């Protein structure tokens, strides 16, 4: 079938949209849905009906003056459910707040103070998105439409200029020109590797004609990262358009999106977008009358992190990586030339052609141009998804955009910052001394970390870095596919050594062995999973050596996290001398006369915690 006229679709949408006086957007991202945003959506519907207010839930000819829609993830997940009425932006909205919002805000234009965002850093309230530092200090190109448009309505994407670039490219540009423009833009792969996207396409383009594939890697397996999920949930059509452009650039007629099964909503929205695009003839045969075909299939992953590695993804039936070369551009899916790009990369493509590659190249540092999304989580005032120009410093992201580090009870305390872990299990730790390091591919690499997919976990002083390294090793050990020995055995042994350190069996020799082993695994593993698995160990050893030493020499965990190294103490001010703990202690480590404060002999104590759980006065505490 012929592709429908997208200019007409955009005009029809915009004409219909003129009827709308008030738009209510309820965030329908995974985070807000968990907070109950779907119930809030339903409450709006019921309440509007009850009051006989004209309300539409889709933009069609003759639609009514109030328009209620869901949006994708707006990235401000900790403040959800998020609701906006026109420009007014409400946070933590509950079903019970809905009648008041309709009564005051929708009908009278009044602002409900209590629902506005309250900035814990300066105690100020913000009325609109533009007033909130979290958003105001970002530069949202990729995420511009996430949270603004209805992700389940392709017409709105088109009305915002969507698929116009794909159309222009299919009709007016040769594959060679497309690759050249991409190289000019300087875009580097956002999945972690940072390989120039245009070059990747060019390699696949120059392969002899025949069957070729485009794969969208949506197997976001790094714990602590959710950029790709948000983009798929918030603007799925941008991903499809990027795949179309990539397909034209290399001469592919088929694409696959490989999504992890942990993302059911993203899968649903991507499938819906594909159906809608097929119905309009944007995907399918003779795309835009160009004589070219392109179809997209969705594949659900089954929970193995290594499948995000490109050769493993291709071989995902058995899920194991292969030796490179041959690179996928030469021999990929079913042995055919294949381009694999990650979600964020693909979703940026149409934007690059819209603004012009030269303009894109001007954003951020010359060697890593463009913007990058980071998932900022952990001990931080404003958890969420942020998009900033590459080269923004860690200080700007943590303090200005995300509102600063917090204590464990949630109060803001920039002084509590200890480290930021970037790049997930493949990445490294950044410390206070890295606060002014620009976040871009090359600067981070020289600091011993990596951009990775963009997970940025902020940790405060109460975090034990040895425990964090152990946590990541647990992950990589579990996810190691077992095909190559250095990764399979190396991660297992590194984990044992780290467990020894955390449980007080470590010696200086353990640290030495750990470092040697880490370097060996780094050099000799087959794929990126193994090669990068030692990074969290090496970077914590480098920047937090004193903490490792405290564990092995003094048998002490400075953060008080490692249970086996905990020191149980009795607070003499609280102890009533009842003797309960003395009776509970299995090794007779507690002494003291009745009615007098008791003491624990640290030499005898086996750290079982019996005294602590027995004490009725909270007198037993764990010291560092």
């Amino acid at each position: 079938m012929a592709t429908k006229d997208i200019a007409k679709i955009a005009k029809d949408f915009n004409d219909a949209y003129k009827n709308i006086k008030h738009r209510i957007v309820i965030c329908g991202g995974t985070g807000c849905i968990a907070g109950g945003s779907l119930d809030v959506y339903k409450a709006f519907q019921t309440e509007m009906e009850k009051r006989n207010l004209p309300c539409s839930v889709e933009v069609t000819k003759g639609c009514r003056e109030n328009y209620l829609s869901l949006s994708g993830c707006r990235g401000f997940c900790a403040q959800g459910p998020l609701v906006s009425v026109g420009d007014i932006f409400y946070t933590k909205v509950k079903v019970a707040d809905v009648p008041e919002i309709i009564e005051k805000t929708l009908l009278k234009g009044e602002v409900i103070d209590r629902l506005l965002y309250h900035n814990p850093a300066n105690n100020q309230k913000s009325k609109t998105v533009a007033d909130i530092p979290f958003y105001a200090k970002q530069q949202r190109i990729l995420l511009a439409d996430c949270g603004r448009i209805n992700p389940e309505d392709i017409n709105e994407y088109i009305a915002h200029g969507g698929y116009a670039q794909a159309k222009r490219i299919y009709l007016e540009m040769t594959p060679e020109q497309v690759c050249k423009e991409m190289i000019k833009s300087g875009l580097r792969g956002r999945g972690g590797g940072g390989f120039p996207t245009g070059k990747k396409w060019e390699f696949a383009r120059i392969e002899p004609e025949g069957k070729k594939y485009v794969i969208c890697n949506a197997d976001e397996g790094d714990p602590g990262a959710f950029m790709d999920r948000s983009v798929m949930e918030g603007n799925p059509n941008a991903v499809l358009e990027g795949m179309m452009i990539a397909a034209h650039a290399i001469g592919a007629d088929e694409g696959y999106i490989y999504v992890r099964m942990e993302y059911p909503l993203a899968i649903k929205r991507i499938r819906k977008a594909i159906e809608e695009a097929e119905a309009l003839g944007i995907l399918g045969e003779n795309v835009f009358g160009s004589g070219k075909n392109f179809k997209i299939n969705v594949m659900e992953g089954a929970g193995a992190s290594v499948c995000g590695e490109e050769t493993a993804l291709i071989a995902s039936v058995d899920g194991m990586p292969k030796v490179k070369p041959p690179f996928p551009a030469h021999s990929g899916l079913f042995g055919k030339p294949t381009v694999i790009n990650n979600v964020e990369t693909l979703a940026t493509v149409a934007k690059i052609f819209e603004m012009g590659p030269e303009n894109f190249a001007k954003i951020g540092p010359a060697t890593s141009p463009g913007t990058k999304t980071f998932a900022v989580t952990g001990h931080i005032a404003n958890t969420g998804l942020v998009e900033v120009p590459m080269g923004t410093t860690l200080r700007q992201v943590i303090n200005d955009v995300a509102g600063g580090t917090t204590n464990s009870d949630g109060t803001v305390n920039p002084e509590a910052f200890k480290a930021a872990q970037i790049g997930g299990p493949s990445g490294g730790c950044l410390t206070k001394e890295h606060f002014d390091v620009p976040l871009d591919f090359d600067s981070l690499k020289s600091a011993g970390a990596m951009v990775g997919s963009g997970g940025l976990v902020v940790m405060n002083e109460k975090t034990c870095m040895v425990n964090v390294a152990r946590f990541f090793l647990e992950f990589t050990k579990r996810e190691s596919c077992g095909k190559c020995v250095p990764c399979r055995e190396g991660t297992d042994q590194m984990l044992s050594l780290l467990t020894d350190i955390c449980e007080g069996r470590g010696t200086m020799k353990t640290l030495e062995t750990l470092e040697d082993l880490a370097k060996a695994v780094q050099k000799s593993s087959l794929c990126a999973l193994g090669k990068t698995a030692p990074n969290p160990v090496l970077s914590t050893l480098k920047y937090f050596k004193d903490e490792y030493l405290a564990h092995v020499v003094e048998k002490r965990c400075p953060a008080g996290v490692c249970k086996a190294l905990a020191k149980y103490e009795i607070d003499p001010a609280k102890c009533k001398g009842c003797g309960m703990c003395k009776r509970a202690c299995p090794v007779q480590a507690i002494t003291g006369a009745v009615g007098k404060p008791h003491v624990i002999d640290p030499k005898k104590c086996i750290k079982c915690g019996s005294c602590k759980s027995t004490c009725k006065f909270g007198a037993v505490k764990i010291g560092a």
Partner: protein
Amino acid sequence: MSDRFKPAAQILKDNNYDSAKLIPILQKVQDAYHFLPEDVMRYIANELNISPAKVFGVATFFAHFAITPKGKHIIRVCNGTACHVKGSAGIIDAVKKKLKLKDGQETTEDLLFTLECVSCLGACGLAPVMVVDDVVHGQVTPAKAEELLDEVIKAEAK
């Protein structure tokens, strides 16, 4: 063919007996049987003309597949980085204690609950996260985790 294999037979047919679709086939089979029983895996191998070892290999490689029966209610506690630094270990301990699960044991004796510790659910903004039968709960504390389990136990008792 016995009735036992009927659901699997239909799934194989829907996928054109294509062995390249082994993962999607196993996903559907697991939905139908709640786990992957050994006899069903052998049956699939036979029908797809591949070795049972291949099917077993894929089934044990991916975290999503279970080769032992799962409980009626699936409790997933996220242990991604963000959840970890925000104290997910305490939640896992609380759930284990409440459900009387021993180390390494995932499913309760009465097959009512299965506890899964997952790497990341992508809801890091709500850390720590616990999912009870596909409903996501954010900013969970050990006490809240116990409450959530109590709700399920109460509903079951009715």
